């Protein structure tokens, strides 16, 4: 086990730079999730850590050693691929034993480690099968088994659950998390699914377009997003944004309605800002409070009701635990929890904090 330090790392393919100076400190034993939209450079960054992609500039340290130019086999990392990359001509046992066989480990040592890993993952009965004789979830487990047997410095996962159906994905998510708690090990996990990130991570790195937008614990990102991108990316359904300006300690919407700001929410008088409100922080209120919206769609999910509504031209979503059933086109009034408001600069999208 080791820490990983990524210091101003850049990556160019030819003349195109796709990673623009990324710095992340990952502590020993930490579970870090890299999350971001498709094409933001998550896989590229992970592959640079693995040694599958060269590092154009910056420094990558595993433990205290700079490994920029070390070949993959010297970095002592294990990786779980999106398509699992199991060797089709080897049985499950041999898939898991391959790395140790290459290192010429003693046979009984290999056997012990493979069987231990198989037991952790519930693969004991499947060791004699070929990958094609396994279900998707079982293949996924074998891929993880192959990583565990290595007992590496760092585990890398690249969207390991994206080929599984929704139910299995939730189950495996729990399993991977439990596995991390049991086996330990520094883990870097790539996903574009923010729920996966929120539920699994000790620390989330939100990326966009080759830049790091914010690094923090899941609830920290949820409660105090640094910018509109993170605010909109973390949380589901996504945060609502309303454009307007600040006047007399309140936010004035495009429809000239007043939303009082909570204490300590500093913004200069008259400034163009964006107000961020999470759907779950809106409540239904009576006449004379909050601001008015026109209902567009009502979506009951059983445990809650999601309402899509419009405030002028701006669309927003509200989630209620109570079973409100407003009709489409109905006008209603909602109010945000003043302590759960977020203000962003109208131009840069940066969070405005006192």
């Amino acid at each position: 086990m080791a820490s990983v330090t990524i210091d101003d790392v850049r990556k160019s393919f030819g003349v195109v730079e796709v990673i623009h100076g990324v710095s992340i400190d990952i502590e020993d034993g930490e579970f870090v999730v890299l999350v971001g939209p498709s094409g933001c450079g998550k896989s590229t960054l992970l592959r640079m850590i693995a040694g599958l992609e060269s590092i154009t500039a910056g420094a990558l340290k595993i433990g205290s050693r700079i490994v920029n130019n070390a070949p993959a086999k010297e970095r002592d990392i294990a990786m779980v691929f999106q398509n699992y990359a199991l060797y089709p001509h080897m049985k499950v046992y041999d898939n898991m034993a391959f790395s140790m066989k290459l290192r010429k480990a003693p046979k009984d040592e290999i056997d012990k480690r493979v069987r231990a890993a198989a037991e952790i993952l519930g693969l004991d009965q499947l060791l004699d099968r070929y990958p094609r004789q396994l279900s998707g979830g079982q293949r996924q487990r074998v891929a993880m088994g192959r990583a565990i047997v290595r007992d590496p410095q760092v585990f890398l996962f690249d969207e390991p659950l994206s080929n599984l159906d929704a139910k299995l994905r939730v189950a495996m998510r729990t399993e991977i998390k439990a596995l991390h708690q049991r086996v330990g090990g520094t883990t870097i996990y790539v996903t574009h699914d923010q729920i996966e990130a929120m539920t699994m991570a000790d620390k989330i790195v939100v990326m966009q377009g080759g830049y790091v937008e914010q690094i923090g614990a899941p609830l920290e990102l949820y409660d105090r997003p640094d910018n509109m991108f993170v605010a909109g990316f973390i949380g589901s359904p996504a945060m609502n944004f309303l454009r307007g300006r600040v006047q007399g300690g309140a936010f004035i919407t495009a429809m000239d309605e007043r939303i009082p700001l909570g204490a300590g929410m500093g913004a200069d008088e008259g400034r163009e800002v964006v107000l961020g409100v999470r759907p779950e922080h809106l409540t239904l209120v009576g006449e004379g409070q909050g601001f008015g919206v026109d209902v567009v769609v009502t979506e009951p999910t059983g445990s809650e009701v999601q309402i899509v509504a419009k405030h002028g031209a701006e669309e927003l979503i509200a989630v209620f635990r109570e079973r409100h059933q407003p009709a489409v086109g109905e006008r209603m009034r909602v109010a945000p929890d003043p302590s759960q408001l977020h203000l962003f600069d109208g131009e840069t999208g940066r969070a405005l904090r006192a």
Partner: protein
Amino acid sequence: MLPAAAFLLLFLAYPLGLGVYLSFTDARVGRAGSWVGLENYEFLAGKNPLWDFFAIISNEVVGTKYELTGDPVFWLSVFNTLLYTVVASALKFAIGLYLALLLNRHMPFKAIIRAVVLVPFIVPTVLSAIAFWWIFDTNFSILTWMLRSIGVLGEKEVINYLGDPLNARASVIFANVWRGVPFIAITLLAGLQTVSPSLYEAATIDGASRWQIFRYITYPLLTPIIAVVMTFSVLFTFTDFQLIWVLTRGGPFNSTHLMATLSYQSGILGGRLGDGAAISTAMIPFLLAAIMFSWFGLQRRKWQHGEGND
């Protein structure tokens, strides 16, 4: 269904059947001939074919002088055919695999280089054989000229490529390899491209060196296609005719006569249809053996297809 079966019967089975039938007669060109049973085979293969088989190998390889019970030329052609097939196929496999691995890498002008590799395969055999006839000409050979310019050969020295038995064998094998490599290289390249790159990456991370990746990943995954392509290659090489006929006509001293060329020579040119047919028919067991070998080789790939849980 029925017309197809009739068609197959007429155009595949009939010539084969006729050939086998002729091998049991003393037919000559222009004369029907009568049934002679195994007489042709006895004349060719002798009273003790197994003895003859090992005797000819011993005579050719270590220079013993054992008497054969059958026709020495026939047995020499059997030896030549096996030598030609084994050596040429092995070389074609090695070079073809190497080329395929090379072409599978990233490099500039990839498409053009791949197309160039195919050239020997596209040129008609007779045409390339005639080119080789020039290349192997004692006086005008470009090979001799090259060897002279790099100083391996003296100014007046020549190599008798096709006139000396050993040289002639090497020369026809060289020509056959040149012609056969593209087919193998391109087929194996196609096989290589079906191997997911993430397997190589997984193996790299597992700590495999380039050689180990080849040995434990690439090669095993390629074995099914290797079995298929090498079966075809062996069949084509074993039955080769054109190249030999243009280059040497079996000479010198029958040292490059293959069963196919000998069959043609005695059956058509010599007019002894029965003999020629018997030589051809004698090729069938060898070909069947080659097919069985690769078929059983293919069967064992459990990871690839079929059911079963072990």
